[in-house]
């Protein structure tokens, strides 16, 4: 092997990689938040008695889960402007990540909601609480706890999917990597570094999830 490793050229661009990493982190966190909101609201509609509320959610979930993320983000970035909706790359990326993650979150959270026993809901009704309060105060927390591992691994997926947002030149790590690579031709060094950074970001994310779990799900179960 005649290739000589030289990280110097890449390390010169370290600040750029660092800033881009923050971009990735920002897209991931904003995407997750949106996905969580879509997930919870989607489940409310998905589990409602009204078919008019249920059907659009079922269609949404099926469409999103059966089409590629790259096409979804292109659709928002290139097709929507023709209908007068023009979004910058960052907003587009967050929207795409949130919508995509949200569709998966709906199915995951629904499983959690269904795992909450009927008796819990009846106890809430018997005490005179209304449906919205029963869902928000009684069902939601145990439901999220039940599916927390699946939901967080979906969110790690979402974090890594931010790299696809390079396709619309969103400000994130993979697009910075591509820029540095084309300037320095140091492909191995650049992607080696970037791989390591993604690993660190994912690990930090898992740490954050564990921390949230310890505080939010701090009650014992049998």
């Amino acid at each position, binding site marked *: 092997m005649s290739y000589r490793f030289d990280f110097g050229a890449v390390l010169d661009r370290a600040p750029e990689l660092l800033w881009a990493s923050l971009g990735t982190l920002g897209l991931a966190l904003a995407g997750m938040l949106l996905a969580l909101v879509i997930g919870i609201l989607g489940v409310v509609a998905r589990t409602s008695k009204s078919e008019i509320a249920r059907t659009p959610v079922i269609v949404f979930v099926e469409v999103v889960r059966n089409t590629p993320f790259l096409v979804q983000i292109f659709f928002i970035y290139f097709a929507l402007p023709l209908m007068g909706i023009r979004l910058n790359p960052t907003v587009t990326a967050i929207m795409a990540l949130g919508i995509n993650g949200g569709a998966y979150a709906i199915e995951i959270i629904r499983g959690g909601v269904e795992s909450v*026993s009927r*008796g*819990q809901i*009846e*106890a809430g*009704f*018997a*005490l*005179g*609480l209304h449906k919205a*309060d029963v869902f928000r*105060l*009684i069902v939601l*927390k*145990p439901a999220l*706890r039940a599916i927390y591992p699946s939901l967080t691994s979906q969110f790690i997926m979402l974090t890594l999917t931010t790299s696809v947002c390079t396709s619309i030149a969103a400000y994130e790590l993979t697009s910075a990597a591509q820029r540095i690579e084309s300037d320095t031709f140091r492909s191995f060094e650049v992607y080696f570094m970037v791989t390591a950074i993604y690993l660190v970001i994912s690990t930090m994310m898992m740490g954050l999830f564990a921390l949230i779990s310890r505080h939010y*799900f701090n*009650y*014992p*179960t*049998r």
Partner: protein
Amino acid sequence: MLNSAKDHPPLISLEDVQKWYGAFHALKSISLSVRKGEKIVLCGPSGSGKSTLIRCINALETIEEGTIVVEGQVLDGSTKSIDAIRREVGMVFQSFNLFPHMTVLQNCTLAPMRVRGASRTDAERLARKYLERVRILDQAEKYPAQLSGGQQQRVAIARALCMEPKVMLFDEPTSALDPEMVKEVLDTMIGLARDGMTMICVTHEMGFARQVADRVIFMASGEIIEEAEPEVFFKSPKHERTKTFLGEILAHH
């Protein structure tokens, strides 16, 4: 005592109530009236409709025909009537159904705060009062999973009492308990009965029925077969089915 009770209009009255689950006729023309302060024990074989009957009173189940009136409020299926009735009717379930993510105290303050609009201070004062009454105040900061079944059921009773209901419905409150915990829950219920609470209890605890019931009602196949004061009910049941049922149940005790 029975005579003075008769001067008051019934607190709960069911008239010709019919319920179906699909083709299954779960409640057949049930009529029943319960006066203030009365203690009713509902018994009967499983699937006889006794749980269904009390679940209709607080609208956890809907009925197809007939009328249910609680404290002058007709249960007509409207949110308003359901809300009004649930405010007056407390319920205790076989499986306790405490909220696992809330402490004992939070379980008790949730409904008074959300439904009655009580302040946290008032709700907690009320909760402590009723937790004291079921003798479990020392566990107020614990979570349900840290309590025994008997303790959980007593918390569930306190939680229902915090809404200061006029009637308490008990749906087999001791059936899910280990034998050594049945007594603490029954003692709590007896205490409640002595204090004059109106109660409808679905239970197979015949000792409890003898001790506190004003009337024992026997149901089978969705019908009220027989009802009588406990004395009469246990000593000289009229119907064959009641005799068979009592024979089976008392053989086990």
